């Protein structure tokens, strides 16, 4: 029952005993008999004796009974009211108890929450402390190891120091002994150099006096050496730098090319536009001065290369992931693996064969080196080889001799022919001279025809002879050839 109902029930006023004159509408002048009947019924239901006797319509009220009934009813009423009051009090008590219980319940719940939180916090703290403990233990272990290591180092350093000290002490003692010796010894061995004659300098020049000029010359030489070294190094570094820059630019171009040649999606188009932008920037910067080494250009180049490389890397990764997802390519790979394995087997077999071959070769070589006792057969073999060689040489000699003889003969013939030619030429010249002489001496002016004809005849004779001679010489030369 809700407290409000209880309250209303308890607040409900008791039956007004004193307000008798408040006329209830139950009984009026007209319905007295019905009322009497009704009240009798009610009383009988309550186990009271009826107040009215059932006589024939005489309103005969049994006053004693009625008063008893009224008295009983009043007592009942009083008892009921008392009981109600008690019940009300009890109800109040229990409701307040309940309320109190609720309050304590909620309070306890809150407390429970708090304690749970506290518990969690403590667990957490414990965990942290444990991890702290572990790290501290590790630190301790490390520190202990470090300490041991340092102790080892200290020990070795101490050994080294002791060794050094002992060595120095020994040397010190030796120096003291020597000093004593020198103090005691009477004759002093003088230092000196004996030389037969002084030798010239290795570069042939004379020694120079030490002056301020030579000193400055030495300084100058030293700085020259250093400078030339710096120059060399700088040159080398520059050359290297230029080469590396070229390589970087080429790499960048190639990367751009590779990325551009792939299928263009919108995103990639945008990227390529960006790339073109950056490319054009770089080109502008580096066009005029490809060897420019200002920081800005260098940074730009390296940044653009890094960018391109990142893009390429992403692209390759994407391709890799695509390839791994595609199932159809597996069979291809399997086949290629098989082929690969077959190749490997074949190559291994080849290698084995070659190895065996080489081993046999090696054995044979070893045998050759290690057989000293077959000297006789070796000698015989050598001899037979020698004989063969000799015979071959002999034959060749024969051929050479024959050829030489032929050459000799031909040469003789040629010389003979040449001698003969010479003789005949001489004769011809003599005859000619004689004939001319005769002609000039004997020719009168009248007989011009005769001598001319005679001259012609003579000439023809001579020319014939000349022809003969020419032909002979031709023959000789032909045979010579």
């Amino acid at each position, binding site marked *: 029952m809700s407290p409000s109902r209880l309250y209303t029930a308890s607040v409900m006023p008791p039956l007004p005993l004193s307000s008798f004159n408040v006329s209830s509408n139950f009984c009026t002048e007209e319905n007295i008999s019905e009322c009497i009947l009704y009240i009798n019924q009610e009383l009988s239901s309550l186990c009271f004796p009826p107040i009215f006797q059932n006589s024939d319509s005489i309103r005969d009220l049994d006053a004693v009974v009625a008063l008893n009934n009224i008295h009983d009813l009043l007592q009942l009423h009083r008892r009921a009211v008392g009981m109600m009051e008690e019940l009300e009090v009890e109800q109040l008590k229990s409701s307040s108890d309940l309320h109190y219980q609720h309050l304590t319940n909620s309070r306890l719940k809150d407390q429970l929450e708090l304690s749970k939180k506290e518990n969690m916090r403590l667990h957490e703290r414990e965990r942290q402390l444990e991890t702290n403990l572990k790290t501290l233990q590790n630190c301790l272990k490390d520190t202990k190891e470090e300490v041991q290591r*340092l102790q*080892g*180092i200290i*020990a*070795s*350093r101490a*050994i*080294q*120091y*002791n*060794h*050094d000290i002992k060595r120095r002490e020994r*040397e010190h003692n*030796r*120096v003291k002994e*020597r000093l004593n010796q*020198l103090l005691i*010894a009477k004759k*002093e*061995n*003088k*230092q*000196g*150099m*004996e*030389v*037969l*004659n*002084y*030798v*010239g*300098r*290795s*570069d042939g020049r004379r*020694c*120079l006096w*030490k002056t301020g000029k*030579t*000193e400055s010359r*030495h*300084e100058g*030489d*030293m*700085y020259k*050496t*250093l400078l030339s*070294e710096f120059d060399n*190094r700088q040159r080398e*570094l520059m050359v290297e730098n230029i080469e590396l820059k070229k390589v970087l630019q080429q790499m960048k171009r190639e990367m751009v090319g590779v990325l551009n040649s792939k299928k263009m999606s919108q995103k990639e188009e945008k990227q390529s536009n960006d790339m073109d932008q950056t490319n054009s920037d770089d080109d502008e910067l580096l066009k005029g001065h490809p060897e420019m080494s200002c920081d800005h250009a260098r940074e730009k180049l390296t940044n653009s290369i890094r960018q391109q490389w990142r893009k390429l890397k992403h692209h390759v990764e994407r391709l890799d992931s695509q390839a791994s997802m595609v199932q159809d390519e597996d069979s291809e790979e399997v086949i290629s693996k098989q082929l690969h394995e077959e190749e490997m087997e074949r190559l291994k077999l080849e*290698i084995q064969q*070659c*190895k065996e071959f*080489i*081993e046999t*070769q*090696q054995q044979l*070589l070893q045998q050759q080196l290690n057989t000293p006792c077959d000297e006789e057969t070796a000698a015989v073999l050598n001899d037979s080889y020698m004989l063969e060689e000799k015979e071959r040489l002999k034959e060749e000699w024969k051929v050479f001799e024959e050829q030489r003889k032929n050459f000799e003969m031909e040469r003789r013939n040629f010389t003979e022919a040449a001698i003969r030619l010479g003789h005949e030429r001489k004769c011809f010249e003599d005859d000619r001279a004689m004939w001319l002489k005769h002609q000039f001496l004997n020719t009168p002016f009248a007989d011009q025809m005769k001598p001319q004809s005679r001259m012609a005849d003579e000439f023809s004779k001579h020319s014939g002879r000349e022809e003969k001679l020419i032909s002979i010489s031709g023959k000789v030369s032909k045979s010579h050839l």
Partner: protein
Amino acid sequence: MNFSEVFKQSNQLCKVSPDGKYLATCVQYRLVVRDFNSLQIAHLYTCLDPVMHMEWSSDSLFILCAMYKRGLVQVWSLEQPDWHCKIDEGSIGLVSSRWSPDGRHVLNTTEFNLRVTVWSLCTKAVSYIKYPKACQKGVDFTADGRYMALAERRECKDYISVFVCDDWHLLRHFESETQDLAGLEWSPNCCVLAVWDNCLEYKLLLYSLDGRLLSSYSAYEWSLGIKSVAWSPSSQFLAVGSYDEKVRILNHITWKKITEFEHPATIINTKAVVFKEVEKRPVVGSEDLSIHQLTVDNSLFSTQSKYEITQLPAQVPVIKPDPDRANPKIGISALAFSADNRFLATKNDNMPQSLWVWDMQRLSLLAVLEQTAPVRCFVWDPRRPRLALCTGNTKVYLWSPAGCVSVNVPVEGSFQVLSLFWHCSGSSLVLLSKEHICLLKYILYNVSLSCHLIGILFRRHAVFL
């Protein structure tokens, strides 16, 4: 390839003249000069005491013989065998002696490093340099012979003096920022001087020719520091080997580290080739043990060896150093660049049987040679990228990018190769044992290369001779 006969020497004193024509050896107190090609004795000189140090002058005309016990230096002339020169340091003692680069001055360091005396063979002039420092490498000449750098120590501070070798004029004298200078070395282009501190502090300083500090490099603090330093022939790189088993390469432009080479005990780098020397004792049956065989055929006692390629990952044998001794045997003690700048050979002291070869173009490990005994000496060919090494047994080992080869020295009795060096033409090797020398001539690059190819082309065994 052929081996010459064996000659005597003492104190490992055997040097080839700078022009390559003569070979000088010292046998106790005698100096024997031979013609290199014919090995005939050209000159014979006698010194006053057993010779401790011998050096050719740069023009191959004079030889210096130093006898430290008596404090004497004798100089002999090749052109005029009658010429003699004797420098007596007297009671002041002698600790080291060397030529100047022009071949006409002798620099003697007296006992206790009291001073350096510069004796001239051309004039009567004598110069003295005070307070020289006694350290690993306190004097260095530039490659062109014009300048000399000398480390000095005055009042507990390190100084560096730069002299002009022409007239011994002091060009620069400046304080060095090292705690205890251990060494200095000029770069091959004569413009930069690398100065390093001793092992208690890792500090490398780079000074320019005129004394300015160009840069300072320190890889770490407190632990033992630099053990060895080498310039590359082109002056491009400076390799610094340290006690932490790493080599750091600095570049000549910024003087910052470009890379560091580690020497791990397990090699997992797949591009490197690990050559392991495998010894094979010849199996001897009882009928072979005749006296004839024993005396004539010394191959009975000499083991033959060849190289095998080990599969990666490979383990390198490590020897832990004694922690209670000074200068522990750990760290990179030897570095050498090849003449063409392309390769760097390193030796790590706690892996004494291994030699590491690095490719300078790729800045990565190229090969590891694992020998059966600690590597004693390794030298690059002065002309070609070829490395010769010895481990104190009777073999010489050659490595080139094509492969490696082990060559047995066919000498009666055993010839333990303790050190070796190349002739300046790169076609011959001089091998030194305790008391003898032997020459290995006409090592043609192509011949050895073909031998390598037969063996190595398919990564199998190498040919042994």
